């Protein structure tokens, strides 16, 4: 290790622990000094530090050594006391504040930790720490338990201007005015005195040499007359002139006086202790000193102030010599002397075995004495004080061995006396002495720690001493590269005074930074702690500085709370200083994080907004992360040749539209021509950019997510070429919303979407540049080419083109299946150019269909009614138009400028479900733009179609008459509340005659179907073609009943015409959508509103009769349409709603060749007190095929096994299914529907008592063989035990066909065997009580 004295601590000690000289002076002296802008002490101070004084000294044991470095500390007697705590604190605060201001302005933050470390150590460590530490140590000077601050000597200074200087000298050393240290017995009042007479040459110039010589002469001659001086001067070979000069002048008096004074002084105070100095020799006071020696001692001097302006070089030398002489000839010898004396005394009383024993014994005896907090009071002449003085003097003279031995000696004494403060002080000095001796590091540290802890034990009294001790200790550790330990010591110093703690913590942080390897985490942490302390003392600039230094440490880490804390506080503090712009940048760092709790977020945001508001202006912040903008959700919706009627249409997939428009827009070759054309027109670099039309709005959707809870506003600005939209919205915490902004270019050119700008709480403007994250960009309707992301946001604006706007009036959002109504499509052209060649394509022609222009104002539903004279109006005219769903508007139709066109549409809710409807309208503009010849208008609607009536048809042939069919229609009302009115049933085509089997009134007395109801009705269907061939009579059209009225029979209302548009057209659509190719026979059943109560329905239990199958194929289509009476639905229109339900290709061909009929009583009354109730039934089985059939009838008693299909149907269909949503395919599967329609009702009506069921009695299995086209009867019997209603369907028919001859009936051969489930047969068994 280097010489301890040259280390920072060593230097500090050599400066701070040095002899003190008490200075006493008269006001005149001060006055003379102040002419130079300096006080007396300031004037002398530069000359008190001797780097190479080279004085020979002998140790107490007569070992000679030479003292090299020496320093005197000068203090006015008034300052020799313990400094006022408050004043000292105030001064330290000033120091810190001053430094804070200075550093704050010039601070530059290293952005990286590496940069931080790469700087040299001296640069890293702020220099003001040293200064502060020194000041802090100085606040503890002149304590009573230490002797090194006790004045060693006293310098008395009197001006030559003073009256009676000798007396003044005596007065100055007046015990009343002396510091308390000397008076209260803490130190010896008899100290060495030195007398100085100061002459200000400004008051009268005289030569000092002359004066001295004269003085000496005077002494020798013992003369007091002026003549004597004159003679003496002449004798001394001085020129006559100068002597005359002196004598002749008035000032000669002064000379004389001075001479006399010196003589008096020497008489009074001793030959060697008196001196005279003349200064202020410069006449004009304009001397300028190159490196001003006083600068370090007067830090608050103004730069303009010329310190020492009256002092010329001679004066300086004179002062210097004086100080050197004072040190080397007086003070050092005096101290040396004192050390000897004290050492002898100590040796006599304390050294040696005997003395030690005595001492121990004596101290032990003192144990009973009162234990005062500071231990016993030691006066200067107590042996303890003397040992301490001896130690301190030896320390100051560099005789560390002696000092150490004395400290050790006294330390034990103090310990025994429990004088803890003194003990700690001695321990502290021991530690320092060890350090300077560079011996035993452990001892040094142990002593320091001991001292530190002892001071701390004293509580507040020792707190500041502990601080000083800690500072020295830390310095010591730092010198020895134990930086980590030093940091710990600094940390321990932190005490009550937060300001000092702050500085200490900051010093600790630097220790961590400088340690090897650097402990950056600790560095950051302590900086932050320090910052907090600074803040507590209102040292905001320091606080900001420390926090900012900590930023690089935490940069890039994921310790989120820390980062938030740091940035938030920096922001807050900058705001306190009024530097709002910087504050905002720091606050922004905090806002984006999502992990904070809600309260923290609120706090952060509130402060942030406050700061922003205080700035009084709006900020444009590029990185504002509030709210979060989901760039990947960015969609630019623009229109080139494709235009959208609504936002909903824009969100539909491009591919969907493209497939829809495929055969409508000009072919691909035309398109490539169009592209070529475009590339010729446009500069190459814009070739890939998108096209938009001036006047058309481009909108971009941004998904905005809010992590905070605060209102935010989005806005755009307006200039002459563009119209930008502005959207106001507020977001709750965690809410996400999509914002649509539009831009409407006004002139031709290039439009580039750069970014989005928004205003947060009308204070902060956020900017988000879309170009920054090009990866996730997505332009929804970009062209087929792969674009670079940039070009996706670039648009070529071409000149304004016509743009049709389309709207379908009163298209219901929600309706019931079967709804049939007219709608009006309105196309309006706002531009100045007409458009023509309109074409329309509808994605789902089952639902929407373009009508005839003349239908536009037709009366609905009257227009659907049959007109007597126009039977076949335009029904087939539409067929061509509907080809491939493409509708060509008539050639002469065009939409003129600034007009609108209305066109009728027919709407039919074909199937229930959520139905999207896409409509695209193609139109051409003429001569407007060479780039764009045509445009398309895309419309999109979503329909919700609820199920209404389930209609199923079952057709069976009558065995007797082949041209007659029995038609059964089952209707289930699946709505929850609607009541449909029955109107009519019609068959499609002219060849069918339909008639009711039974009057409607018997089935539906009210002619309407209530919610949840089901009913069946039967019709007779006649094939008129067959009948005509057989009966040879062609009935006139007028009386052919292809329609049947099911409504009130007296209603004279006309039938709906099913053979004309739109019903016929929709029926065609249904057919094609249901997969029917060409129709053999067409039925159209128009349904009506039927109403039966459930009970009624049960009362009319019925049987199915299956007639012989004739082998002739008839296919029937069924469609089911329903209608709501006026005002019954939620629709606003007053016209009744018509519903049509279509069913196609129903045929009897799906029947099995085996049909059967169960016949027997329907209702039985039985007295159950009798043992059994037997019911006899008859089953008639018919084989309708041309093959021999073997039939096997199995009956089951257990309802669980054979009733399974029914059970399943029941459970899967909850009773409230009619309000449910599932689409039940009604087409072609009429049998299942029928079963369902019945079985779902059955559980409701059947009582629970029917659960025990019944048993089949007789044979459980019957087998019989049926000849072709024959009928057989089988008797059946059941036993019933309790009254109830029974479903006798738990049997199965297995049949097997054996063909008679293979050549015929190929179709039959396919179906050689099958299983038939029994159909429901309800039997009511009643208890007959009255019969006995």
């Amino acid at each position, binding site marked *: 290790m280097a010489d301890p004295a040259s280390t920072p601590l060593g230097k500090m000690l050599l400066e701070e622990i040095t002899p003190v000289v008490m200075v006493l002076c008269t006001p005149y002296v001060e006055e003379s000094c102040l002419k130079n802008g300096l006080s007396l002490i300031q004037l002398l101070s530069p000359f008190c530090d001797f780097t190479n004084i080279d004085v020979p000294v002998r140790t107490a044991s007569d070992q000679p050594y030479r003292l090299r470095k020496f320093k005197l500390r000068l203090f006015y007697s008034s300052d020799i006391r313990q400094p006022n705590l408050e004043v000292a604190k105030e001064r330290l605060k000033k120091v810190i504040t001053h430094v804070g201001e200075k550093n704050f302005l010039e601070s530059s933050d290293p952005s990286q930790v590496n940069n931080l470390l790469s700087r040299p150590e001296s640069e890293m460590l702020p220099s003001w720490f040293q200064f502060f530490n020194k000041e802090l140590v100085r606040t503890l000077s002149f304590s009573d338990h230490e002797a090194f601050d006790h004045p060693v000597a006293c310098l008395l200074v009197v001006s030559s201007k003073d009256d009676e200087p000798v007396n003044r000298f005596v007065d100055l050393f007046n015990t009343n005015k002396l510091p308390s240290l000397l008076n209260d017995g803490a130190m010896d009042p008899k100290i060495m005195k030195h007398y100085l007479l100061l002459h200000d040459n400004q008051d009268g110039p005289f030569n000092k040499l002359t004066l001295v010589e004269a003085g000496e002469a005077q002494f020798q001659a013992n003369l007091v007359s002026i003549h004597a001086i004159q003679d003496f001067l002449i004798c001394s070979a001085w020129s006559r002139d100068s002597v005359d000069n002196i004598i002749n002048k008035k000032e000669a008096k002064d000379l004389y006086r001075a001479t006399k004074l010196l003589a008096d002084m020497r008489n009074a105070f001793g030959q060697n202790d008196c001196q005279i100095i003349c200064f202020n020799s410069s006449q004009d006071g304009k001397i300028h000193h190159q490196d001003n020696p006083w600068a370090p001692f007067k830090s608050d001097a103004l730069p303009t102030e010329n310190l020492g302006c009256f002092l010329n070089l001679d004066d300086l030398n004179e002062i210097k010599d004086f100080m050197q002489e004072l040190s080397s000839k007086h003070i050092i010898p005096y101290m040396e002397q004192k050390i000897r004396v004290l050492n002898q005394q100590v040796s006599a009383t304390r050294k040696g075995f005997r003395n030690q024993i005595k001492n121990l014994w004596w101290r032990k005896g003192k144990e009973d004495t009162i234990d005062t907090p500071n231990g016993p009071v030691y006066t200067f002449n107590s042996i303890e004080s003397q040992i301490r003085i001896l130690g301190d003097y030896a320390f100051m003279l560099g005789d560390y061995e002696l000092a150490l031995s004395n400290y050790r000696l006294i330390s034990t004494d103090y310990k025994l006396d429990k004088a803890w403060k003194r003990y700690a002080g001695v321990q502290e000095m021991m530690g320092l002495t060890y350090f300077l001796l560079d011996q035993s590091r452990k001892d040094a540290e142990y002593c320091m720690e001991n001292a530190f802890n002892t001071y701390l034990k004293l509580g507040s009294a020792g707190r500041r001493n502990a601080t000083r001790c800690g500072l020295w200790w830390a310095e010591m550790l730092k010198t020895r590269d134990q930086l980590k330990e030093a940091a710990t010591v600094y940390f321990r110093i932190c005490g009550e005074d937060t300001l000092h703690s702050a500085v200490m913590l900051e010093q600790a942080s630097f220790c961590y930074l400088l340690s090897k390897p650097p402990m950056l985490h600790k560095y950051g942490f302590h900086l932050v702690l320090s910052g907090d302390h600074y803040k507590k003392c209102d040292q905001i600039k320091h606080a900001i500085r420390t926090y900012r230094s900590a930023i690089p440490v935490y940069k890039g880490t994921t310790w989120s*709370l820390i980062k938030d804390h740091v940035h938030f506080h920096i922001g807050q503090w900058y705001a306190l200083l009024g530097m709002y712009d910087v504050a905002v940048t720091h606050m922004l760092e905090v806002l984006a994080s999502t992990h904070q709790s809600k309260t923290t977020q609120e706090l952060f945001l509130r402060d942030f907004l406050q700061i922003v508001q205080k700035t009084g202006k709006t900020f444009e912040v590029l990185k504002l992360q509030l709210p979060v903008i989901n760039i990947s959700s960015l969609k630019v919706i623009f229109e080139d040749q494709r235009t959208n009627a609504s936002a909903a249409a824009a969100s539909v997939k491009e591919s969907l539209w493209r497939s829809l428009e495929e055969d409508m827009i000009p072919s691909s070759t035309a398109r490539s021509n169009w592209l070529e054309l475009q590339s010729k027109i446009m500069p190459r670099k814009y070739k890939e950019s998108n096209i938009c039309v001036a006047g058309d709005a481009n909108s971009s959707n941004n998904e905005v997510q809010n992590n905070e809870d605060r209102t935010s506003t989005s806005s755009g600005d307006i200039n002459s070429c563009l119209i930008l939209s502005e959207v106001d919205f507020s977001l709750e915490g965690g809410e996400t919303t999509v914002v649509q902004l539009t831009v409407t270019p006004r002139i031709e050119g290039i439009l580039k979407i750069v970014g989005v700008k928004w205003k947060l709480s009308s204070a902060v403007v956020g900017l988000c540049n879309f170009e920054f994250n090009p990866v996730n960009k997505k332009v929804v309707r970009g062209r087929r080419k792969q674009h670079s992301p940039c070009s996706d946001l670039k648009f070529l604006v071409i000149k304004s083109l016509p743009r049709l706007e389309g709207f379908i009036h009163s298209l219901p959002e929600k309706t019931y299946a079967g709804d049939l109504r007219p709608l009006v499509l309105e196309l309006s052209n706002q531009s100045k150019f007409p458009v023509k060649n309109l074409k329309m394509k509808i994605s789902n022609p089952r639902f929407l269909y373009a009508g005839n222009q003349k239908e536009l104002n037709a009366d609905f539903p009257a227009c659907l009614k049959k007109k007597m004279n126009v039977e076949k109006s335009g029904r087939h005219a539409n067929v061509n138009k509907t080809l491939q769903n493409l509708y060509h508007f008539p050639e002469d139709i065009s939409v003129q400028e600034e007009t609108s066109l209305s066109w009728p549409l027919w709407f039919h809710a074909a199937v229930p479900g959520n139905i999207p409807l896409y409509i695209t309208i193609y139109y051409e503009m003429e001569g407007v733009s060479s780039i764009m010849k045509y445009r398309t208008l895309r419309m999109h609607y979503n329909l919700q179609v609820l199920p209404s009536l389930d209609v199923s048809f079952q057709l069976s042939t009558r065995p007797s008459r082949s041209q007659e069919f029995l038609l059964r229609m089952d209707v289930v009302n699946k709505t929850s509340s609607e009541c449909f009115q029955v109107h009519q049933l019609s068959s499609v085509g002219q060849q069918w005659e339909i008639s009711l089997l039974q009057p409607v009134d018997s089935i539906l007395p009210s002619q309407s179907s209530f919610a949840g109801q089901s009913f069946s009705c039967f019709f007779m269907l006649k094939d008129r073609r067959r009948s005509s061939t057989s009966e040879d009579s062609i009935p006139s059209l007028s009386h052919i009943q292809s329609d049947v009225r099911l409504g009130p029979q007296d209603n004279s209302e006309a039938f709906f015409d099913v053979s004309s548009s739109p019903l016929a057209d929709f029926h065609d659509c249904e057919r094609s959508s249901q997969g029917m190719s060409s129709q053999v026979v067409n039925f159209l059943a128009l349904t009506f509103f039927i109403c039966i109560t459930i009970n009624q329905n049960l009362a009319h239990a019925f049987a199915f009769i299956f007639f012989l199958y004739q082998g002739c194929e008839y296919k029937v289509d069924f469609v089911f349409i329903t209608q709501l009476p006026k005002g019954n639905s939620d629709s606003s229109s007053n016209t009744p709603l018509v519903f049509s339900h279509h069913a196609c290709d129903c045929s009897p061909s799906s029947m099995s060749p085996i049909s059967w009929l169960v016949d027997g009583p329907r209702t039985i009354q039985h007295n159950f007190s009798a043992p059994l109730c037997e019911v006899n039934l008859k089953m008639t089985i018919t084989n309708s095929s041309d093959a021999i059939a073997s039939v096997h009838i199995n009956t089951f008693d257990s309802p669980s096994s054979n009733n399974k299909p029914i059970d399943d149907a029941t459970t899967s269909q909850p009773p409230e299914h009619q309000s449910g949503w599932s689409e039940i395919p009604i087409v072609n599967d009429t049998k299942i529907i029928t079963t369902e329609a019945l079985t779902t009702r059955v559980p409701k009506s059947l009582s629970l008592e029917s659960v025990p069921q019944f048993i089949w009695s007789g044979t459980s299995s019957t087998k019989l063989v049926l000849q072709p086209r024959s009928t057989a009867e089988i008797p059946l019997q059941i036993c019933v035990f309790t009254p109830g209603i029974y479903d006798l369907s738990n049997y199965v028919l297995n049949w097997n066909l054996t063909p008679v001859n293979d050549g015929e009936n190929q179709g039959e051969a396919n179906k050689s065997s099958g299983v038939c489930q029994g159909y429901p047969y309800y039997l009511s068994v009643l208890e007959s009580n009255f019969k006995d």
Partner: protein
Amino acid sequence: MTTAACFIIASRSDIPIYEAEVGSAAKREDAAQLPQFILQAALDIVQDLAWTTSAMILKTIDKFNDLVVSVYVTDDHILNIDDGIKSFFQEVHELYIKSLLNPLYLPGSRITSSHFDTKVGALARNFFCSRTQYRA
């Protein structure tokens, strides 16, 4: 007196991959970042010690006022920092290894499993409920 502990698992590059506040102490809003500061600062010492000792449990390696920091160093030098009992560390280590075994877990990324969270919470309650010291 409050009973609370902050438990953080930090990955090799000093990134906290799991954080939990356990114990019954009412969380002070103003000092929410303090445990993080303390634990992060303690990493310095851990980094020193981790390579010099073979012990996995380093008790009371750092102090801040009355808050004590203990560390459990796992084999792959991912550090769990907390004050606590050996067994607590061992239990949590077991949990941690289990979560490491998850093929979808990328070592070094944040542990977000709620299962892990509840388990740690339960363990902490077992071990710290009787203690009456605020610690980090």
